[in-house]
């Protein structure tokens, strides 16, 4: 079902639930992985993904279509992730690096990196980045999202995003080189 059709059906009370069900099915995987890459833990990602769609339900009627539905949902997901990480830091009085360390522990517990030392260092380096820079890196490196769309999702200028991604790459390369014997 196309986004426009989903929106039209959502505005009709009789077809609202069907339309929303279709919307969740269409975007759940993208939203989940977008969130998962930021919070690493599946349970946290699950909670946040549900929260994202609840917010979508609550505000979809007022969605003005200035951006595409996908971009709008991604923006909600991004804000949820950043708020989650920020509140976690406040809750446990953690500095920036400690959240990265916690995420690294979760990643290592995942056991998906066994045997690949360079990839392990790369992931550790990514998790050491500040939240917003990591978000930019994920969108560009893993999802290959155009900078213009990233600007809509993050509410940041294209120039600032390019600079942020460039710095992130430099930091990652520096970390991997420094930790390699």
């Amino acid at each position, binding site marked *: 079902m196309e986004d426009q059709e989903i929106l039209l059906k959502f505005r009709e009370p009789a077809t609202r639930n069907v339309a929303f069900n279709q919307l*969740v099915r269409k975007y759940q995987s993208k939203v989940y992985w977008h969130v*998962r890459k930021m919070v690493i833990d599946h349970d946290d990602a699950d909670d946040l993904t549900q929260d994202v769609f609840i917010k979508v339900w609550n505000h979809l009627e007022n969605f003005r279509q200035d951006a595409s539905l996908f971009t709008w949902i991604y923006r909600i997901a991004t804000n949820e992730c950043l708020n989650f990480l920020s509140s976690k830091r406040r809750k446990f009085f953690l500095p920036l690096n400690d959240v990265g360390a916690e995420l690294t522990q979760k990643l290592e517990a995942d056991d998906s990196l066994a045997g690949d030392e360079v*990839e392990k260092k*790369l992931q550790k380096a990514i998790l050491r980045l500040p939240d917003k820079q990591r978000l930019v890196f994920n969108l560009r490196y*893993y999802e290959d999202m155009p900078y213009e769309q990233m600007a809509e999702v993050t509410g940041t200028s294209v120039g600032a995003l390019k600079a942020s991604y460039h710095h992130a790459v430099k930091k990652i390369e520096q970390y991997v080189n420094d930790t390699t014997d």
Partner: protein
Amino acid sequence: MKTPFRLNEHPRRPAPPLAPPPEDYFDKLPLRVMQRVRPQEPAAAPLLGWLTALSAPLRTALASLLLLVGFVGTFWLTQRALPQSGAPLAATRQSSAQALAAVPRAEAVQYLLSDEAARLSLAELSETTVADHDLTSAFLPATDAEIQAALDEQPSVDVYL
């Protein structure tokens, strides 16, 4: 010599190496989301449903306005209940004086000399005197000789304030 790591030379994965979610996770997720959004539908009361359509700042502003109206209304009603001029106060004083004048003189003297009168504190008497000097003379419309005689009858061991 080791080759420095370059990210663009590293094989790019489509996603970080994270374990996939449970197998039926994406089959069940829409249902779980729908279960969380459905109970909210009847939550809005018919009369107050329009409130949910307002934005949060607008709802806060409305609540503040209602609170302000409540304060102003209470103040206005309180002002209406209070006397607007000195006339009703004067009428009250006059009726009090008349009521006191109606008390027989002997009974008033007897009351003042009794134990009950001793319960009055000096502060109370002084306040009454300060409030209205004429009022005290209305309490005891007796001659000096009558008062002196009544006082002389009191036992000398009594202590007066």
